[in-house]
């Protein structure tokens, strides 16, 4: 029962990762790539949460919190850079 849920969850997340990476490669402008990179980080956070859900290792939530902070700072830095180079 749980194996079916795990399979569906991880395959949906893998498809999300593939589509976002495709937009990161294709994206016509630089802000497109910034949006795709932000969503890529969110998908990785979702992978960490799904891994914690599957294995019962709730210490992974600490990892998730730190990764979320780093992702936010990186996105803000990238947006600041995009405003500087216009």
């Amino acid at each position: 029962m749980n194996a079916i849920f795990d399979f569906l969850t991880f395959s949906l997340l893998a498809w999300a990762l593939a589509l976002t990476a495709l937009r990161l490669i294709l994206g016509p402008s630089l802000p497109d790539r910034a949006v795709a990179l932000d969503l890529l980080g969110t998908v990785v956070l979702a992978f960490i949460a799904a891994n914690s859900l599957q294995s019962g290792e709730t210490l992974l939530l600490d990892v998730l919190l730190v990764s979320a902070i780093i992702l936010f700072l990186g996105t803000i830095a990238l947006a600041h850079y995009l405003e500087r180079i216009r």
Partner: protein
Amino acid sequence: MNSSFEWIELVGRTIGLLGAFFVFVAALGVFRFPDVYMRTHAATKAGTLGLGLLLLSVAIQYPSVPTFLKAIVILIFLFLTAPVAAHAISRAAFLQKVKLWERTHTNELEGKYSADGKTLDS
């Protein structure tokens, strides 16, 4: 006792699957939408909702006080920072004059920013 525990597990797993589905919808929106602003909208709304549902699923599945508190803290942090990041990126895109989709017919922000992008004329 035993059967109620299984019910909680089933509900938690279903919420987790729903969260993964919403993350997938966000990726689909980022892949398919025609311009930056729509892509930002899809990524930030559906992505935050999906990650929030996955965290809620972890908190339901393994109920203890530290897990619940950590999940709530991460949720509050996400709800505070995701709109800020999306706004920063789309503001940079607008100041870079990234083209809107050709069938967008109203642009209420056009010409409202000053030349240096620091002040907004209302």
